[in-house]
C-alpha cells in the first residue's frame, strides 16, 4: 500500500504539488494522468525519492519513505522510464540482472531470473540475452525495460510514460503484456501517461491531476460516465471521442427538411408574399439547376428591392452552410456564431438538403433523449 499524506512540492515560487492525499492499494494498477505540467511525474518520483517533497509524507506499507535509505528503497521498487532507459553499454542479460546484482544475487540466480523473464515476454533467451539495446527494436527495448524493473521481484513498479515513444501497434501489445504480467505477478503498478486511451485500458483506478492537484480519482467507467471537470471531459473527448455517441451525429441529424426555396428569377413582390404567408423572414435562393446560391431576407427586399425586378441582385451569399455529412458539432458552432438564425445544409451536389435552426436543433436533441416529440 502506498499512501500520500498532505504531500506538497515547490520549486521556488511554483507549487507543483498541492497537499496531495490519496492511497493506492496493494495489487492495484493506478494510472496518473493529466495535461503536461500537472505534476503526475513529480508525484511518481516522490514515491522512490527521486524527488523529496517540501511537506507531507509518503508511506509504503505504513513506513515513511524518507526514514529509509534511498538506495535500498529504490532497489525494492521497479522503475521504468521512456525508451532510452536501457544502458547501451550493457547486454540484455546485464540490463535485466543489474538490480539483482546490486542486491548481491549469485550468478546462477541472475541467470535464472533472465531466463524466466525473457520467457514471460516470448523473447527466446539464446536469441536475445546477449544482444545490446541498439540491436533490438523499440518495442523489444521497452519490453526489456519492463523486465529490468521486475527482475528483483519488487512488489511495486513505477512506470513513467513507458510507451510514449512507441508506434501504436507495438504500444497496444505492450500495454496488453504489462496488464497480463501485473495480474499474473500481482504487482502494484503506478503508471504515468498523458494518453487517456492508455489509462482507460490499463487502470483499475485513474488519478486525474491538473495544476498539482487531484481533480478526480475514480475507476475508468466512473470517470467516463461522470467526469468531474471540463478538463477531464476534454481529455476524454480527445481520446475516446469516437466511442461517445455525440461524435457520430451529423449535420443532417439536426436539420429540418422542409425549406422554403425560391428560384433566383422570382420577382420581389412574389417573394414577400411567400414569406408573409408562411410567417418567415427569409428564403433560400437556388439557381435554375437547383444548386444553392444564397439567401434573401425580407429586410433586403424592403430596403433595396424594387417592384417588378427579380431577387437575383439581392442574394446574400454569406449565409453559413455545412455539408449534410459534416460533424454536427461544426454545424452547431456555425449556428451559434452566425448572425442569422439558421445554417443551410447542402447535399454533395450543392443542392439544398435542409436547414438547421435553433428550433430544429432543440427538436433533434429532444428526440435523441426522449424519442419522438409530438410538435
Amino acid at each position, binding site marked *: 500500500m502506498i499512501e500520500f499524506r498532505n504531500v506538497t512540492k515547490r520549486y521556488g515560487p511554483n507549487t507543483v504539488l498541492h497537499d496531495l492525499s490519496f492511497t493506492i492499494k496493494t495489487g492495484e494498477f493506478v494510472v496518473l494522468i493529466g495535461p503536461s505540467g500537472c505534476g503526475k511525474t513529480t508525484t511518481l518520483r516522490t514515491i522512490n525519492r*527521486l524527488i523529496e517533497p517540501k511537506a507531507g509524507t509518503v508511506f509504503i506499507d505504513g513506513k515513511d519513505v524518507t526514514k529509509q535509505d534511498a538506495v535500498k528503497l529504490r532497489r525494492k521498487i521497479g522503475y521504468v522510464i521512456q525508451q532510452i532507459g536501457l544502458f547501451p553499454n550493457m547486454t540484455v542479460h546485464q540490463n535485466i540482472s543489474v538490480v539483482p546484482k546490486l542486491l548481491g544475487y549469485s550468478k546462477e540466480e541472475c541467470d535464472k531470473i533472465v531466463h524466466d523473464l525473457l520467457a514471460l515476454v516470448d523473447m527466446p533467451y539464446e536469441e536475445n540475452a546477449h544482444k545490446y539495446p541498439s540491436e533490438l527494436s523499440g518495442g523489444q527495448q521497452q519490453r526489456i525495460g519492463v523486465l529490468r524493473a521486475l527482475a528483483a521481484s519488487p512488489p511495486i513498479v513505477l512506470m513513467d510514460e513507458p510507451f510514449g515513444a512507441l508506434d501504436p501497434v507495438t504500444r497496444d501489445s505492450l500495454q496488453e503484456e504489462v496488464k497480463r504480467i501485473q495480474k499474473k505477478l500481482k504487482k502494484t503498478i503506478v503508471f504515468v501517461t498523458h494518453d487517456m486511451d492508455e489509462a482507460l485500458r490499463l487502470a483499475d483506478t485513474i488519478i486525474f491531476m491538473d495544476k498539482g492537484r487531484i481533480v478526480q480519482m475514480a475507476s475508468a467507467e466512473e470517470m467516463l460516465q461522470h467526469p468531474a471537470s471540463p478538463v477531464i471531459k476534454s481529455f476524454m473527448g480527445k481520446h475516446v471521442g469516437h466511442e461517445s455517441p455525440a461524435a457520430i451525429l451529423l449535420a443532417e441529424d439536426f436539420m429540418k427538411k422542409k425549406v422554403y426555396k425560391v428560384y433566383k428569377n422570382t420577382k420581389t413582390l412574389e417573394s414577400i408574399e411567400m414569406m408573409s404567408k408562411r410567417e418567415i423572414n427569409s428564403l433560400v435562393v437556388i439557381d435554375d439547376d437547383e444548386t444553392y446560391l444564397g439567401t434573401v431576407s425580407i429586410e433586403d427586399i424592403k430596403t433595396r428591392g424594387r417592384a417588378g425586378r427579380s431577387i437575383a441582385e439581392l442574394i446574400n451569399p454569406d449565409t453559413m452552410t455545412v455539408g449534410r455529412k459534416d460533424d454536427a458539432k461544426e454545424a452547431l458552432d456555425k449556428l451559434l456564431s452566425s448572425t442569422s438564425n439558421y445554417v443551410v445544409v447542402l447535399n454533395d451536389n450543392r443542392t439544398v438538403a435542409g436547414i438547421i435552426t435553433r428550433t430544429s436543433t432543440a427538436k433533434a436533441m429532444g428526440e435523441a433523449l426522449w424519442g419522438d416529440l409530438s410538435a
Partner: protein
Amino acid sequence: MRMIAFFSKNTEAMLASIGRHIALVLIAVGLGMAIAIPLGVLLTRHKRAAKPVLALAGTVQTIPGLVMLGFALIFMGIGTLPALAVLTIYSILPILRNTYTGIIEVQPAYKDAAKGIGMTKSQVLFKVELPLALPAIVSGIRISAVYIVSWATLAGMIGAGGLGDWIWTGLATYNTDYILAGAIPSAILAFAFSAFIGFLQKLLTPRGLRRNA
C-alpha cells in the same frame, strides 16, 4: 644514400633515443590521465567550477611550448624532471575536456534510470557514466599522446633526451642528417600512437555503443 648510411651507422643511438622518447610520452600522458580524469569527474560534480577550470587549462595550453620550457628551465633547472612537468601539463587539457564533456553528455535518462533503480552515486559513475563516456575519454588521450610526441622533441632543448636531441644538434650544426634522424622517427611515432590508441578505443568500446560511435 647518405641518409640511410647515417641511420645505419647510428642505429643503436637512435633506438635508444626512440625508447627514451616513448618513455617520456608514456609517463607524461600517464600522469596527465592520472590528474585529468579524476579532475574531469570532479568538475562534472561541481559544474560551477568547471567553466573557470577549463578556461584556465585552455589558457595554459595556448602558451607556446618554448616559453613553458623556458619557465621550467628557470624554476626547475635542466633535466628530465622539468621536461616531464611541462609535458604533463600539456597532456592534461585534451583529456580533461573530453572527460568532462563525455560525462556531461551522457543522456540524463541513463543517469535517471541508474539512480531510479537504486545505484549509489559511485555505481552510477563507474557502471554508467564512465563506460558511456569512455570513447570520448580515450579520444582525448589519443589527441594528448599525439601532441606530446611532438612537444617532447622540444623538451630535448632542456636536456630531456629523446629524439629532440638529434633535432637540436642538427639545427645547431646545420646537419640535415641529424634533423631527419629526429624528425622522421618522431613523425612515425605520432602516427603509431594515434593508430594504437585508435585500436584500443575500438577494443574498449562496448559493442552496444559502436554503431553510433
